[in-house]
């Protein structure tokens, strides 16, 4: 059992507050992805869990045991470093076996585990090489294999696939997910690639400026962003926003249209809709098309609605040209509302 609890963890570097009061529980065997822009504190949080950085305040628990005072090796973790940290003076074999050697495992056991994890990561033909003779992607796979070989309760991965080409990344992603599910490992996986996050995660924690703004399943993060930041961060392209003013009785004026929305007394809200939840219709938001980008199955339109940039993804059999005037209808159950003051989501069925 390796449930991870992060309780009120904060971290300051001098006067810079890198993490603010993080609270997060990761269930046993869960695959948790930490997703956020560069510099938001993902690595810092991971390093605190690993014991390579000491939190300023707060506690870390793993498997019902407080571990934040323990050295890294006593925490039952293995880690994949963002910059690999594959030892240059050891062969790939000895790199993967490093932790096993430290545990003083028997030689044949080391060989067995190293060979198996190397096969998983498709690097079995590189075992006798030194890291100076590997590509970035191969080095990264050695780093992952080194962590997997430990068969840890918890595996911490800091952007472990960032250096692979698209095809290999896809393959490794599936492989990794399979291996981890099979081995009953609790995983924390840092990435700033949303597609990777979506495809791997049981749950995603979206981080922003040292805070966790939402921790939920990939679908929920996508469909029901808890904060305007999440809505504007997740999705490619992200959600569209338009200012909405209160029209009374839970009705809101957006551009030249009126929509049913939350029945709250605020004077203004923000209306949000995903580009793919828009349809061309006889009645809808007036949009002037600025740019048409064919994406194969779809067309990505960049339009202008009431002076705001607005994107729509439509079926590619439409014939639209820049300069055209369109009416875009929003799918009613996909519309989301945000409070412009708090940035928080405002539920419709309030």
């Amino acid at each position: 059992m390796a449930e991870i609890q992060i309780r009120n963890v904060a971290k300051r570097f001098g006067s810079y507050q890198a993490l603010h009061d993080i609270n997060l529980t990761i269930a046993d065997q869960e695959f948790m992805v930490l997703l956020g822009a560069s510099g938001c504190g993902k690595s810092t949080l991971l390093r605190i869990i690993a014991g390579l950085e000491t939190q300023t305040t707060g506690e870390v628990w793993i498997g019902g045991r407080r571990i934040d005072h323990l050295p890294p090796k006593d925490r039952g973790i293995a880690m994949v470093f963002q910059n690999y940290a594959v030892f240059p003076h050891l062969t790939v074999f000895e790199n993967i076996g490093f932790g096993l050697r430290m545990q003083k495992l028997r030689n044949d056991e080391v060989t067995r585990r190293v060979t198996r994890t190397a096969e998983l990561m498709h690097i079995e033909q590189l075992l006798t090489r030194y890291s100076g003779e590997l590509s970035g992607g191969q080095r990264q796979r050695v780093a992952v294999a080194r962590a997997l070989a430990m068969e840890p309760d918890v595996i911490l991965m800091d952007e472990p696939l960032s250096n692979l080409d698209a095809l290999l990344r896809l393959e490794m992603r599936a492989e990794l997910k399979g291996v981890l599910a099979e081995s009953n490992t609790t995983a924390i996986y840092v990435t700033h690639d949303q597609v990777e996050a979506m495809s791997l995660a049981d749950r995603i924690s979206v981080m922003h400026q040292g805070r966790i703004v939402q921790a939920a399943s990939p679908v929920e993060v996508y469909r029901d962003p808890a904060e305007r930041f999440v809505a504007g961060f997740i999705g490619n392209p992200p959600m569209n926003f338009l200012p909405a003013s209160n029209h009374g009785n839970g009705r809101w004026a957006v551009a030249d249209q009126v929509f049913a929305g939350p029945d709250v007394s605020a004077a203004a809200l923000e209306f949000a809709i995903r580009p793919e939840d828009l349809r061309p219709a006889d009645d809808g938001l007036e949009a002037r098309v600025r740019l048409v980008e064919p994406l194969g199955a779809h067309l990505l339109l960049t339009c202008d609605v009431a002076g705001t940039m607005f994107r729509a993804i439509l079926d590619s059999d439409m014939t639209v040209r820049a300069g055209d005037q369109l009416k875009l209808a929003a799918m009613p159950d996909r519309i989301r509302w945000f409070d412009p003051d708090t940035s928080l989501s405002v539920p419709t069925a309030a």
Partner: protein
Amino acid sequence: MNARLLPYVLILPVTLFLCLFFLYPFVLVAAQAFGGSDGLSLDNFRDVVSYWKFPISLKNTMLLAALVVPVQLALALLMATMVNRMKKGRDLVLYIWTIPLGISDLAAGIIWLAIFEQSGFLNSMMTGLGLAEGPVNFLSYQNPGLVFLAIALAEIWRATAIMLVILVAGIGLIPKEYYEAAEVFGASPWQRFLRVTLPMLRPSLQTALILRVVLAFEVFAVVAALGGTLLPVLMGEIYAYQFDLQNGGAAAAMALIVLGISIVFTLIILRVLRVPKGATI
């Protein structure tokens, strides 16, 4: 200027300098060493090697190096590791530790002579504390072991810093992430030293060891100050041949022998501490 010629033109002054002040004297020395009454001969070498003091001075030099260099290596590694861990005052400590480096070896020998001689600090201290009846002559022919130890001590004090500065620079170049990875994967501080620091320090260890070993074979002034003629060493013999016996040919032959020993040890160190291809940082 022609771009292909420019590099050669630029290294010309230094090449000339080396030819004039290193290669030319070297050739002269070699000529003197191999020179005999009838052209080329090995007579000088035969003479110096068969002289009764040769095996003794060779043995002394080797023993001294064998004692001094490993102790210095261990000390320098320990000191470098400590300095590297320091957050504040690192530069000050390093500066103090390297002070002996700025003292010439003869001066260093005299400093230690002032400690060990019959009216020296050690004797006054021991008499003052009542540990000894009267002054003892440590550095006499009756205590060859003590003379040897005193010389070793002075050498260690004098020349550990040269290894220290090289190793400090080398340790500073090892990226922190390797220590973190080793720590996460269960290496104790001692294991991290053995399995990360030492192997990744190989290039610096090579430099430091070669420099130190070669200098150890050239030990002279400290021995002269502390041991006089009690402990003959190779360099002392060269000096004696050249200036006391006025035998330039023999002195040159001895110098070439020392050079040969230095080259052999340099090659051994390079070989033992070589970094496999592809295994660099």
